[in-house]
């Protein structure tokens, strides 16, 4: 696994933790510890995304440093990077 993939994996893991806390809070809206933990993970994700984008370029369409054309560039999430895009 390359350094880029490793960093992307850490971003995914942090975002997944955010999502788990998010749906937990749907049914436990008064759980302050979970809300605090969610805020921690949001900060962690933001820092990791910043680190990633500085090294490897834009991650999201909404990133300030992307051009609107980067969005259409593959590979798309279901692809393996071997697709013929013509």
């Amino acid at each position, binding site marked *: 696994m390359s350094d880029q993939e490793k960093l992307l994996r850490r971003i995914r893991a942090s975002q997944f933790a955010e*999502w788990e806390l998010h*749906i937990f809070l749907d049914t436990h809206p008064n759980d302050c510890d979970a809300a605090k933990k969610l805020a921690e993970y949001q900060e962690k994700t933001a820092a990791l995304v910043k680190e990633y984008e500085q090294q490897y370029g834009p991650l*999201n369409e909404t990133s300030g440093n992307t051009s609107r054309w980067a969005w259409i560039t593959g590979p798309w*999430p279901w692809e393996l990077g071997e697709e013929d895009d013509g």
Partner: protein
Amino acid sequence: MWVYEKKLQYPIRIQTPNAALAKIICAQYGGPNGELGASLRYLSQRYTMPYPELKAILTDIATEELGHLEMVGTIVYQLTRNLTPQQIQEAGFDAYFVDHTSGIYPADANGMPFSAGAIAVAGDAITDLHEDLAAEQKARTVYDNILRYCDDPDVRDPIRFLRAREVVHYQRFGEALRLTTDKLDSKNFYAFNPEFDKK
């Protein structure tokens, strides 16, 4: 509204195509216990749900199910790429291929197109939450059965992730049901329908 995130919830990279396996994994794309039905069931039930917790959990789990639909579609796509017509026939995938080639179509493992007949919206919070709890277990059973036929770790890994999510959703829906009965008449949960009868 929804905004697309250009990534999978869990990464999928399948090295070896396997159309026979794709044929059974289709079940979770367009079958009666699949991810398309799951997302439509929860998205449709939420409009008349009482209590903020229920509206939130149905919206959020439905949204995650759409991400799972994308994951299942990705697995089927990667399992059916670069195959010859002969390999497709040997794998028993030719009956699918004749109508869809390698396109991804929502049908069950027998080729029966997706039907909203597999989901229910009763407009009664207790009834619908029981439907949702059952739906999560039915999806978990299908993933368990897929795992019986699958020894490729590239496929087992994301299938096991999806299976685990069914268990987490079952847990959240169980909490939602408990929240609901806590707000109802403790002597008779069925005294009135909180989605219809104004108390």
